[in-house]
């Protein structure tokens, strides 16, 4: 392997937090989401020894698949009661101040209230840093469908979030 090849640690530093956030759309518990991220990341890296930036959607897809598998296993194990408890997300975003953390909590609850396909579109686009084309590739969907879901999600969030969240600096 040439020394100029990207190593997995570089990719980890750049994408770990956003991948865990993405996995939390199915696995609200942070530890579960990290397990899924680990499984997806390792599988992706083993399948592509020299990944390029264009492969990023495949990394998200790998984590998505791992998260879905783990969520399925968890559901079998824990049952409906636990699922109800899981709908209240624990901290998805960091905040330096109490006000920022409270705002993050409000946003997390609003996003958790969105339909899953809209949530995926908005998480991948905003925090995943993917283009609409890359989001479409990750989800194996049409780019227009993805863009429509993203806009619908923003419209709903404008209704769900207090005005203070729209305009906070």
């Amino acid at each position: 392997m040439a020394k100029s090849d990207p190593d997995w640690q570089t990719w980890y530093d750049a994408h770990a937090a956003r991948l865990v956030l993405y996995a939390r759309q199915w696995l609200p518990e942070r530890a579960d989401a990290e397990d899924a991220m680990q499984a997806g990341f390792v599988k992706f890296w083993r399948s592509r020894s020299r990944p390029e930036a264009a492969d990023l959607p495949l990394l998200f897809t790998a984590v998505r698949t791992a998260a879905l598998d783990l969520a399925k296993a968890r559901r079998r194990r824990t049952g409906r009661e636990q699922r109800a408890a899981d709908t209240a997300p624990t901290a998805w975003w960091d905040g330096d101040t109490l006000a920022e953390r409270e705002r993050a909590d409000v946003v997390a609850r609003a996003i958790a209230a969105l339909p899953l396909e809209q949530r995926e579109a908005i998480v991948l686009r905003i925090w995943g840093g993917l283009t609409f084309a890359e989001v479409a590739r990750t989800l194996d969907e049409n780019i227009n469908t993805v863009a429509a879901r993203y806009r619908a999600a923003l419209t709903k969030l404008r209704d769900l979030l207090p005005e203070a969240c729209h305009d906070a600096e």
Partner: protein
Amino acid sequence: MTPSDAPFDDHADQSAQANQAADERLSAQLAGLRPVEPGPGLRSRIAAELPLPGADSFETLARRRRVPVGERLAWAAGGAVAASLVFLLGGVVPSGREQAPVAAVTAVDSVPAAAARPSQVRDEALSWSDEGIRFVDEFTPARVLRRKVIERHVAGDGTAEVRVPREDVIFLPVALR
């Protein structure tokens, strides 16, 4: 477009533009939220499963050093034939330590000089396995590799070869960030 449509379309355009501006403001606000960083253990767990940066993957190493089955069988058969020849040509089949004849001591003196030269030893790696990262002690992580090797001892005169299997355990120091 008829003139009567114009006010309606203008209104629709303005509304769409206002929505788009509001969407952009909201998405910019949301983008300002930083996803929570994963726990420190996650990197270590991934490190235990993936090759270290700059190192060849051990699957690659194993592939590179893998000897075809046919070649391995040929070497094994050759070794067996060579060992048989040594016994047959020597004409002595050892029957136990207690019964070794005293004359054997004098036979050592008559071994040709070429055969008395030290044998050459060559390692033939059969396989590598990577057992991941383990802590040697509380603060010292190391990657543990296991290598299976056949030692080929060839007599100085080349008339005999002995193959000895061996397993090496290698600890490579690693740094976990």
